[in-house]
């Protein structure tokens, strides 16, 4: 369980990036943090494992307050893994396997255990066989997978991903979404920041909306996407299928205030409408 209580953070005296954010994510959940560019998503994420120390407020992991001394930081960073938006910022080692091994080695595990974890993590993200490759020779999607493997090898309880689908091709996005869902099924709590509204209802049970350093809404995708004013404030839109059904409603179809958010929901709704008429 991860809880953030009234976090405030300023980069300098005239710019406050976070103006008092509180949120709570239960164990095993998969949630999305929506917000436009510059809303403070990345800043918030860097607080979740103690990279940034808030000016005010606290972070709790499993009910334990995050402390900023070396020993507790190592503990919390094992529990909460952050996958950075740009894999180039994260992958630094000259070979894939060395990069994946970096986290586990920092945890002070035995070499054998580390080797097992590296193999396991690479297999998990479908990158077995790339152990000896140089990261800068990989494609964007492959780099992202290696970056995720580097975090997985630390066996975190909570995985935080900063715009994981940015810059991936459509197939890459599908594969990544599938991987994240599988990881979630295995019990890892997942927090994703994004502004790709089409994808969010597919995986997120709960959604937070961050605007200019303040959390303005929280709820299921259904609830959030039913509030046009919230979406407008956050520079967001409803998913494209939802837009289609809103247009159909304007043509005289009765939607009973239930707009589908995903392709599957849309299909069912369509069949229902066809039956009715």
């Amino acid at each position, binding site marked *: 369980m991860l809880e953030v209580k009234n976090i405030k953070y300023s980069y300098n005296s005239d710019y406050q990036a976070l103006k008092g954010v509180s949120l709570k994510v239960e164990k095993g959940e998969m949630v999305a943090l929506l917000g436009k560019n510059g809303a403070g998503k990345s800043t918030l994420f860097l607080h979740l494992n103690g990279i940034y120390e808030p000016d005010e407020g606290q972070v709790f992991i499993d009910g334990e307050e995050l402390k900023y001394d070396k020993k507790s930081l190592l503990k919390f960073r094992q529990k909460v893994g*952050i996958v*950075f938006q740009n894999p180039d*910022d994260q992958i630094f080692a000259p070979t894939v396997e060395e990069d994946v*091994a970096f986290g586990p080695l920092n945890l002070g595990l035995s070499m054998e255990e580390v080797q097992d974890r590296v193999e396991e993590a690479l297999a998990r993200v479908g990158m077995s066989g790339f152990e000896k490759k*140089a990261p*800068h020779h990989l494609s964007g999607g492959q780099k992202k997978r290696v970056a995720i493997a580097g975090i997985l090898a630390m066996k975190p309880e909570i995985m935080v991903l900063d715009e994981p689908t940015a810059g991936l091709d459509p197939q890459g996005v599908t594969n990544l979404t599938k991987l994240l869902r599988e990881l979630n099924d295995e019990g890892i709590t997942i927090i994703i920041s994004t502004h790709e509204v089409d994808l969010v209802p597919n995986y997120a049970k709960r959604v937070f909306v961050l605007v200019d350093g303040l959390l303005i809404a929280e709820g299921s995708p259904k609830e959030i996407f039913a509030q046009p004013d919230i979406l407008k404030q956050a520079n967001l839109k409803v998913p494209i299928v939802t837009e289609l059904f809103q247009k159909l409603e304007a043509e005289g179809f009765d939607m009973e205030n239930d707009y589908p958010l995903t392709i599957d929901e849309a299909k069912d709704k369509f069949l229902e409408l066809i039956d009715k008429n």
Partner: protein
Amino acid sequence: MKFDMDYIAHHNELTETNPYFKLFLTIILLILTLALDNLYFDISIFVVMSIVILTIAKISWRSYLKFLSIPMAFVVITCLFLIFFFGKGEVIYETGIFGIVVTTDSLHYGVYTFFRVVGCLPLLGFLALTTPIAKILHCLATFKVPKIFIEIALLMYNSIFIFLNEIDTMQKAQETRLGYHSYWNSFKSLGALASTIFLRSLDKSETLQHSLDSRGYSGELPIYEPRKRE
């Protein structure tokens, strides 16, 4: 064609050859070349190593020439300076400009330096073009080279590629907007490029620090030993 030394190091017939062997061979031959200081030896090393690089490691001659061309340019300039501006002894040629002369001594220095470097270049090329840097660093680590040097080398090596990429992208963006259209423009564009790269490097180093910290970095990069495979 772009010359990507790292790519070549990873994709040639000698990549998987024992790095210790390659490192030792290179060092021993380097020492020999420098110690013997014999023109015939220099030339034969050049020929032999070039043959090894081109036919055994199967590196294309274009890449090899590109590898040689940059240091060669420096060597030629250096040796010209040596010949014209250094040394004492009997004058064998007078240029007639500012009393610049070539002496027996300086000619000897120039020629020997040139061939020594010519002999050493393919040796270094042999190591650099056939061995990925990771393997070299591993060797150095087992020889108890201080960790700090290896870490700096590692992080520098990683950053070089990120920066080359970034410079490449920025340069293309400038060229698209005719940034290198005229002589004066080129100066301005290059200046802008350099200062942006500097600012960006500060930014990048901070993000890298965050991501390293985030995975429990303690100020010392641990060394991973991959499992031995049959």
